[in-house]
């Protein structure tokens, strides 16, 4: 890494945070069994990416990345909505939101 004026204000720091957030979200998605918490981990991953995009936009003075973030948020909102209604429907069917109960596509 290039020498920065200080580590706290360099680009790499925010990239590091973003990577860590993404990894935490990924591990959470693989580990947690509650469907709603699963969705929240996915939101976490999305935010990590948003953070990275904004960082790059700041450093390269490019507005396109921020527009991209905007649209990502739009899509995330729509997806959360539909995802939650699916969870409600799934709860009605199996009376459980344990993701491991939904393995009918096995084999």
């Amino acid at each position: 890494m290039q020498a920065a004026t200080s580590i706290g204000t360099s680009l790499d720091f925010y990239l590091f945070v973003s990577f860590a957030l993404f990894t935490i979200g990924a591990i959470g998605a693989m580990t947690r069994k509650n469907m709603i918490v699963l969705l929240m981990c996915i939101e976490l991953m999305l935010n990590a990416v948003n953070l990275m995009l904004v960082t790059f936009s700041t450093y390269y003075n490019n507005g396109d990345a921020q527009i991209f973030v905007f649209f990502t948020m739009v899509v995330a909102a729509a997806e959360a909505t539909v995802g939650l209604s699916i969870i409600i429907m799934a709860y009605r069917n199996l009376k459980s939101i344990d993701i491991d109960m939904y393995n009918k596509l096995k084999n």
Partner: protein
Amino acid sequence: MSLQIISIILGSLTLASALMVVLSKHPVRSVIYLVITFFLITSMYIMMNAQFLAVVNMIVYAGAIMVLFLFVLMLLNLNKEVEPMATRGSQLAAFIAGGSLFLVLITALKDTLILGQSYRENHSQIGLVKELGNLLFSKYIVAFELTSILFIAAMVGAILLAKRENQIIE
């Protein structure tokens, strides 16, 4: 100097709360921690002078989506339930996979040439509403219009999916 400390504190707090989201046993607590994470991320946006996005982030994510999550949690009345843990093996596999992912991503940072200057020195004006508005309504106008259709589809879908079917008596 103080800016530096603030950034580091913000970064570590973000990671800590994200960790709590994943690790806590209560679903409601996870939601709360996620809200805190969103607050912190918003503050990072503000540090980088991405004003519009900071506000949108707050309103949409922390304000709307998290409330939705809470509503569903309350609806399903899961407050008291404790979910079973994943097996040790799958937990191990998840950690290894995640850890490897982190490693690989960090490796990408290793020899890259990054503009090492402080974001403060960049004096980025790009995050202002005026600039973003200009860009959104000129270059990305089509995508902007299409998002309205996307919302309608999402709304209709959500309502239809969650509607209670009339019971058919055999």
